[in-house]
């Protein structure tokens, strides 16, 4: 052998050994790193790949969600490798491409590790695994053994028909119910117009919106749709924006966006609405005014002033404004104003709309939203009585949680325990499901077939966007299997078949092609509406009953404090409570996370000696809760506010034990006319037992100390400025050093504070898109939240001693001359040629100098490695690195989306077009407050915003040259306007 051979052999051997070692190590690593075995422990590429799956590319499915919030929402589900990783709004639906924070967090519901993983039987109080066959058989036997109650959320479209048919086939009763229903509004509209409906509100056409406590930007009726249409009305470019007046005891998220607040005493809304109607009728006159003249006569501003706590001159002034408005609209209260006179309030608001000419224009009774039949609170109480009486042999609950969402005083939970068989089709072990005998877990909406009726004749189609992670089946399929198990044939094998059968007629000859097209082209389909709906009048006449309704003047108030309960954007009726994104989304009003609280006016807190975070005890005749105080100027001194949705006892690891459930304070009184539960108005006793409760508040200061962060302009000033302002579409706002002069792009953003209402959808979308971890209550309390975007809620004083609120989303400003960049010793943060402040996670050693030097405080440090339990990790976006402990992170304008757009453009040999890059925050924004684009294009939308009269940069005086332009909010309130020049602060101090 010569040396050369030896050498070659040696090299051969070592290379093979190396590859072997690499292979073994790789396999070992793969085995170790894949926790759940069912994900697959072998990395084998597809020999024949499925048609849909392109590696590294999302497949988008259109579908519709009806349990993702108060309204049905069309979504595009982005699916990567068989797992949905992001939800975005479907532009074809009324939500117009936007989603709320709660809807964005639906993915954490889908991947909730606390979902019931498969059928379970309760044996001696413990849940034991069962097979689907046994479970279905047992459930069917129970259903067949006597009268059965099927309890579901309100259903529309095929599901409504299906449940009714199933109930008929099984000899069962079907009751649909939801906690925050609209029974009072329906009852009032029945009286007023003979139409027990929720009308269609056209806020886009309104020029003055008077909300009687309706939190329509966050939780009421259809917040995503209404926020979008209100933002249209509020648009200040080239016209006078609509005015928003808020009437009620407490400023909700919507209230904080109002121009004026009439702090009406809880329970006085009806008389106030009538007094306003009287003022309007006097000024407007005409037929409607004449019709209701007699009932309005006693409701003079002076007569109502004392009872409502609103000065007579303010009532008259508002009446005058409404009378003068071109297209006003009054919105009735949500549950925060739902007391024992709920129907009267709704009726009074309807009469106000009537005399103001809103019926048929901004309040229409044709093309109304389809809500589906729903039981009222009183109906549920009646059901409880029947259950206690032993009328029902079996109860099947599916998708509802009455044991949590009805006050104990309703007796529902107790009565449910009396029913011999309780079959739950719940996805999770909530307060209701945990009392069941059998659990047959349903699939999630995102794993199911279905359709939803949005408006009469207009439907959204639902399709499963991925295979279930758990051993679950579609709710309707479980019901079908139960029917089949006891020989009650419904004529179909599966619900999918049932659904297709329902659409066969509308499809025409080629059903397959139609069905495929309908699903792939946006999932909105129509079919001729029922004759009645078609004939519906937009403006039905006011009934004689309403025109002569015996309203009574309110009695003078006593001195007590009353309770106001309200839903929040993050939890709604409690469904969001087990989602960490929702627990960690700061409340729009308090900015608190992972908590419940008691909102009280400073003058209420002072005699008790409590400050933010001090425990207060709230007692009513029905019960007592303890929660930390939140001192808030936006609530009347004679009211306290407690949010709904927390205080779960069974719901999952995230929700359980967080906060309190204020329903314990309700004695179950209902509005006698509609049967609606009185959520508000109960007298309470307040004591301060001492001690503090942790309530992490994610905002340091409530004002910006005139540092020009949240800027407000009077409407007149804004219009005058816009008039005098010329935008030069050829002028560049860029300085040479902001980005590489050779780069065609510098990315920029504009945020219109006049459109932003602080709902937090962008924040949650950012968590979902960028794998931003949640950290839990303890770490939030230590100031270690990870949100890349934070909505600051700043109060501005007004000249009439009130205050205005500006919601300012603060994210990395991608400064052109960034303070964070020069201080990093290792170049982990650096300036990209396109002007972004990139963050190289692998390079970061964690000195935190960049965060110290960031004037906007938008950098987030990984104090620990945060990991979510399986299967929550399946939601992680593969396009974005998951960060480890010791690394700084922050917003980079969704750089993965920028790169995707650039690649697409490059493949087509063209530059990226304006509006082509859509960041996650911008995509989901219900009010389209966020715009994104290229600042090197002088005509792009962001360039125009930066040069516009309302544009300014945050702390631009530091010469950080932020790439984010904020557009000043406008208000009709008499805010103080500083002497600083308006606009142009972002680009070289150009004054206008």
């Amino acid at each position, binding site marked *: 052998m010569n040396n050369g051979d030896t050498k070659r052999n040696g090299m051969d051997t070592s290379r093979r050994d190396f590859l072997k070692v690499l292979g073994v190590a790789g396999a070992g690593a793969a085995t170790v790193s894949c926790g759940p075995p069912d994900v697959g422990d072998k990395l084998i590429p597809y020999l024949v790949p499925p048609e849909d799956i392109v590696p590294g590319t999302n497949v988008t499915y259109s579908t519709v969600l009806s349990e993702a919030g108060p309204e049905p929402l069309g979504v595009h589900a982005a699916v990567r490798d068989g797992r949905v990783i992001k939800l975005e709004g479907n532009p074809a639906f009324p939500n117009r491409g936007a989603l709320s924070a709660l809807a964005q967090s639906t993915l954490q519901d889908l991947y909730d590790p606390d979902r019931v993983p498969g059928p379970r039987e309760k044996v001696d109080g413990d849940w034991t695994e069962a097979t689907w066959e046994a479970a279905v058989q047992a459930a069917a036997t129970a259903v067949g053994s006597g009268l059965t109650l099927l309890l579901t959320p309100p259903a529309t479209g095929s599901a409504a028909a299906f449940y009714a048919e199933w109930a008929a086939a099984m000899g069962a009763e079907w009751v649909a119910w939801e906690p925050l229903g609209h029974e009072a509004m329906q009852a009032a509209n029945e009286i007023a117009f003979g139409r027990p409906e929720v009308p269609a509100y056209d806020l886009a056409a309104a020029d003055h919106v008077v909300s009687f406590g309706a939190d329509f930007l966050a939780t009421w009726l259809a917040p995503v749709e209404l926020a979008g249409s209100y933002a249209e009305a509020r648009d200040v470019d080239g016209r006078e924006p609509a005015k928003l007046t808020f009437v009620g005891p407490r400023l909700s998220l919507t209230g904080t966006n109002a121009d004026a607040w009439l702090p009406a005493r809880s329970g006085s809304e009806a008389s106030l609405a009538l007094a306003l109607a009287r003022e309007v009728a006097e000024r407007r006159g005409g037929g409607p005014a004449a019709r209701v003249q007699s009932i309005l006569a006693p409701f003079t501003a002076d007569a109502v002033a004392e009872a409502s706590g609103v000065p007579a001159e303010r009532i008259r002034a508002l009446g005058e404004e409404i009378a003068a408005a071109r297209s006003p609209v009054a919105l009735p209260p949500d549950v925060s104003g739902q007391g024992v006179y709920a129907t009267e309030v709704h009726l009074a608001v309807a009469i106000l709309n009537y005399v103001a000419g809103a019926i048929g224009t901004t309040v229409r009774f044709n093309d109304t939203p389809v809500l589906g039949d729903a039981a009222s609170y009183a109906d549920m109480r009646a059901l409880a009585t029947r259950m206690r009486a032993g009328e029902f042999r079996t109860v099947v609950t599916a998708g509802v949680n009455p044991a949590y969402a009805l006050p104990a005083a309703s007796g529902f939970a107790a009565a449910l325990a009396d029913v011999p068989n309780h079959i739950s089709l719940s996805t999770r072990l909530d307060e209701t499901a945990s009392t069941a005998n059998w659990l047959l877990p349903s699939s999630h909406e995102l794993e199911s077939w279905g359709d939803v009726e949005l408006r009469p004749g207009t439907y959204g189609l639902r399709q499963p966007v991925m295979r279930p992670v758990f051993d679950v089946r579609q709710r309707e399929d479980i019901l079908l299997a139960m029917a089949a198990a006891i020989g009650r044939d419904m004529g179909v094998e599966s619900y999918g078949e049932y659904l297709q059968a329902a659409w066969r007629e509308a499809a025409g000859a080629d059903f397959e092609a139609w069905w495929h097209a309908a699903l792939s082209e946006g999932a909105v389909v129509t079919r001729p509406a029922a004759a009645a709906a078609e004939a519906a009048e937009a403006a039905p006449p006011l009934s004689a009953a309403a025109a002569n309704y015996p309203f009574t003047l309110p009695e003078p108030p006593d001195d007590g404090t009353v309770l106001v309960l309200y839903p929040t954007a993050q939890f709604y009726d409690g469904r969001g409570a087990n989602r960490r994104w929702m627990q960690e989304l700061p409340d729009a009003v308090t900015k608190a996370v992972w908590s419940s609280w008691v909102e009280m006016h400073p003058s209420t807190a002072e005699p008790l000696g409590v400050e933010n975070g001090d425990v207060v005890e709230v007692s009513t005749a029905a019960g007592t809760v303890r929660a930390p105080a939140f001192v808030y100027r936006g609530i009347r001194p004679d009211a306290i506010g407690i949010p709904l949705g927390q205080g779960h006892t069974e719901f999952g690891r995230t929700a359980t034990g967080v906060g309190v459930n204020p329903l314990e304070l309700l004695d179950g009184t209902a509005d006698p006319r509609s049967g609606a539960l009185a959520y508000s108005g109960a007298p309470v006793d307040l004591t301060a037992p001492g001690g503090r409760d942790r309530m992490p508040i994610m905002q340091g200061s409530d004002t910006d100390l005139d540092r020009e962060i949240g800027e407000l302009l009077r409407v007149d000033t804004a219009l005058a400025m816009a008039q005098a302002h010329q935008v030069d579409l050829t002028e560049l706002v860029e300085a040479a050093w902001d980005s590489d002069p050779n780069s065609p792009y510098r990315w920029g953003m504009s945020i219109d504070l006049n459109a932003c209402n602080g709902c937090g959808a962008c924040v949650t979308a950012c968590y979902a898109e960028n794998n931003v971890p949640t950290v839990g209550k303890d770490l939030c309390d230590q100031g270690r939240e990870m949100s890349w975007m934070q909505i600051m809620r700043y109060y501005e004083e007004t000249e009439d001693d009130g205050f205005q609120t500006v919601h300012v989303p603060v994210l990395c400003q991608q400064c052109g001359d960034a303070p964070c960049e020069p201080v990093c010793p290792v170049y982990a943060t650096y300036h990209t040629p396109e002007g972004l402040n990139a963050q190289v996670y692998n390079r970061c050693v964690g000195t935190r100098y960049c965060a110290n030097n960031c004037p906007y405080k938008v950098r987030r*440090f990984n104090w620990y490695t945060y990991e979510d339990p399986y299967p929550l990790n399946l939601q992680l976006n593969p396009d974005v690195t998951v960060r480890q*402990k010791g690394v700084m992170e922050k917003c980079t304008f969704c750089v993965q989306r920028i790169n995707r757009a650039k690649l697409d453009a490059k493949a087509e040999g063209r530059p990226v077009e304006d509006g082509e890059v859509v960041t996650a925050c911008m995509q989901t924004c219900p009010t389209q407050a966020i715009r994104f684009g290229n600042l090197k294009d002088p005509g792009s939308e962001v360039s125009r915003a930066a040069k516009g009269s309302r544009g300014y940069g945050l702390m631009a005086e530091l010469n950080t040259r932020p790439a984010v332009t904020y557009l000043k909010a406008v208000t009709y309130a008499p805010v103080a306007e500083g002497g600083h020049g308006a606009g142009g602060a972002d680009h070289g101090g150009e004054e206008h």
Partner: protein
Amino acid sequence: MATAEYDVPAGPPPTLADANRDISRPIETPPWRFWLLLGITAVFILIAGVAWAIQIRDGIGVAGINNPVGWGVYIVTFVFWVGIAHSGTLISAVLYLVRSGWRTTINRAAEAMTIFAVMTAGLFPLIHLGRVWYFYYLIPYPSGRLIWPNFRSPLVWDMFAIGTYFTISLVFWYLGLIPDLAGLRDKFTGLRKKIYGALALGWQGSVRDWAHYRRLYLYLAGIATPLVLSVHSVVSWDFAMGITPGWHSTIFAPYFVAGAIFSGIAMVITLLIPMRWAFGLEKYITKYHFDNMAKLLLLTSMIVGYAYAMEYFIAWWSQDPIEIESFRWRAEGFYAGPFWVMVFCNVVVPMSLFFRRIRNSLAALFVISIFVNIGMWYERFVIIVTSLAHEYEPGGWGIYVPSAVEIAIMVGSFAWFFFWFLLFTKTLPTISIAEVKEHLAHEQEHGH
């Protein structure tokens, strides 16, 4: 150990042989007390080591730092120790160059203190890193990625400044030790003789040796002198280069240098008084030395007090509302306690040194030096933490409270420092024998 009349014990002045014997006596056989003290420091070092291990395992979240206060006790303690490191060079080099005779008996201990303080300070930039296992990214090594450190970052300047200071201080200290090491070589037998012999680099005490030695010592003193000003100036730029209100100020370099000398002198006093007593060095470290150190302490206290006042004046003069709010909050806000502790310890207490009786009381001096040590730690806490907690964006304000891990590591840093100092006192002469003998010989010749 100390009374108002503590001066040189009665009796004849020490002879050259006395000096040899007295100063090197502690090196011979350590008493049990020494082992006990060493054991205590070792235990605290161990606790700090465990705390650091936990921090590396779990993440730096075990410290109390947060958003917005990214730097806390670690950086506070880092700056504190860098400050302590200052007076060593000042006393050895600057006072040598200006021929201040009173440095003779204290320079060795002060230099040792410098070395150990830098060794302690140097740990903190590592401890505070989020990912300490990648610390070498900060070093300009020829990496395969072709990435160098960012030379615009004050943290990189810092590394070079402290590295240079440590190197020069170590060489300077070692050079001064060579004649004494030779003396120890001649004194001992066996292994110790070999070790001291190797360290003495073949010193023979010849005129030629002395000539080279004196020349090199002078040059090194010359090189070291600017470092007194540069090191803490650079450390101060870690803050002054940031745009944080409360940091971004041109007075920071002189302000920090004065503060460093102030705290360094205080630490020298804190160390020398017990050492003098424990090793019976009363004849060598006298009222003369302490009085001079007390005067230096008073001077630097006044400079520091002036700097505090100037910070407020500049904030007011600028009429920058953000700057004004920052300084208002510093004195009135959540951290008002640390602020007033700082003012009391650093400005009010040292004013008593105007009185000769207090300067001449070792007990009073010792207590005052402890106050200054505490006050100077709080000064860095106030500068670093209150500035970060209350910055530009009011919505981002937050509060920082140190955690147990941080406290353990801070206490451990003191243990680490004293551990090395204790070892020093038992292995090397704590006073420069050669210089003392030179001084004594000079006095005898000229009948001082």
